[in-house]
């Protein structure tokens, strides 16, 4: 797969179709791939990587890159293409300046899970069908890809690439996953249990803002969390209220636009399951206002930008779901 992507990136650059390519390159270790811009064939040959750790969603980078001179090629996995379409819908990306290469995806892997599977001292990874061969200092070890998938990929909602100029690999279909199962499990708890659960999770927050920075839906040029007057800006002032507030507001700001790409949870250095907040909003909107998938098409309206006269009253919250 990596060779096919590299080859395509090089031919796009050489033919002059695009001026730069958005892809992934190795960070400090082979598993912490970082988004990168490639402007020459040498860079691509040397650094371009597509591996089971290419989890990073490149769609957000298209906002700025599409405003540069010339065209930008970008590799989008199925879930990234939803984010891209959502940004396009919000007029954030100049479509004519982006060349999208859709890449089929078998799910991305979680290095923590690879380690937990007993692969200490890993130095590299190879794909072999459905299994992964991890090269470690102590020899090679074969793992099943299914066992080390990122949480978000385990409940993948769609293998369909919703927007592309060309495809590498097969176009997929939407998947019927039970991604709301963890939300339902939480809803079934008592408020006390939920409160304790979220305190345990959110109290670990160090306000590094990684979840905001990586989120393709969080792309305001001026963010409320950067506004000194909002009182939300600094970590030094944080206590339990501030943690709740930050995460409620963050999730609320992307409600109706969140495609559930799961980047927030992937980048969280404290492993807070942030996607559960976003997914709660998605689940509520689906249940109360009809099914909606952000980024699935150009025409549908986000539930929060729309209304009907017969909408339920907010008091519905007192009666539905959860224990009293």
């Amino acid at each position: 797969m990596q060779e096919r992507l590299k080859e395509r990136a090089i031919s796009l650059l050489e033919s002059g179709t695009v001026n730069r390519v958005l892809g992934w390159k190795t960070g400090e270790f082979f598993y912490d791939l970082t988004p990168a811009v490639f402007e020459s064939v040498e860079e691509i040959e040397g650094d371009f990587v597509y591996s089971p750790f290419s989890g990073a969603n490149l769609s957000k980078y298209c906002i700025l890159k599409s405003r540069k001179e010339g065209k930008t090629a970008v590799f989008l996995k199925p879930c990234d293409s939803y984010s891209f379409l959502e940004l396009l819908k919000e007029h954030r990306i100049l479509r004519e300046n982006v060349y999208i290469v859709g890449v089929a995806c078998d799910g991305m892997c979680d290095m923590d899970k690879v380690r937990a599977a007993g692969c200490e001292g890993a130095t590299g990874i190879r794909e072999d069908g459905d299994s992964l061969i991890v090269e470690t200092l102590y020899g090679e070890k074969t793992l099943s890809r299914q066992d080390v998938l990122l949480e978000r990929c385990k409940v993948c909602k769609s293998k369909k690439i919703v927007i592309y100029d060309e495809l590498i690999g097969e176009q997929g279909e939407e998947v019927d996953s039970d991604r709301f199962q963890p939300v339902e499990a939480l809803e079934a708890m008592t408020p006390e249990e939920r409160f304790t659960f979220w305190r345990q999770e959110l109290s670990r927050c160090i306000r590094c803002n990684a979840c905001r920075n990586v989120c393709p839906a969080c792309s305001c040029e001026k963010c409320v969390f950067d506004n000194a007057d909002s009182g939300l800006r600094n970590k030094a002032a944080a206590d339990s209220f501030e943690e709740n507030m930050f995460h409620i507001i963050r999730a609320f700001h992307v409600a109706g636009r969140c495609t559930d790409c799961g980047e927030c949870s992937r980048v969280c250095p404290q492993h807070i399951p942030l996607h559960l907040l976003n997914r709660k909003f998605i689940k509520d909107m689906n249940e109360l206002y009809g099914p909606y998938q952000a980024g699935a098409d150009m025409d549908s309206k986000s539930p929060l930008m729309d209304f009907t006269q017969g909408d339920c009253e907010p008091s519905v919250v007192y009666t539905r779901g959860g224990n009293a």
Partner: protein
Amino acid sequence: MPVNESFQPTIVAFCCNWCSYAGADLSGTNRLQYPANVKIIRIPCSCRLNPMFVLRAFQRGADGVILCGCHPGDCHYTTGNYYARRRMTLLFSMLDYLGIEKERTRVEWVSAAEGAKFAATMNDFVQTVTKLGPNRRLEDLRCRKD
């Protein structure tokens, strides 16, 4: 924590300028009683209520927050309260999801002619929140009064 007999909750009521604020006024001119715990904040339309306002109110010591607006269909700006209705439904549901007592938040539609409804709503809400006791799950210790 046992409910303190002398506990007096602080209630913040966000009232839309065109209906509910006038409704509150009417309940005053009609000399209808509602508890002094209710602090009214006037907003131009119920959809002006940023979710952050609700959280801020709790931070600064509110024990309950209620939003009053025009009845759906009667919005001065035609559609504002329809948007507010969806937003508040989601926000309240999220607060409940985080384990914060859902009874502390409420939305009620009060028209300018419903002075009696305003007073009744406030009486009922103050009673509910008094039963719940002080807001502890969404409080900011730095803003604590005692």
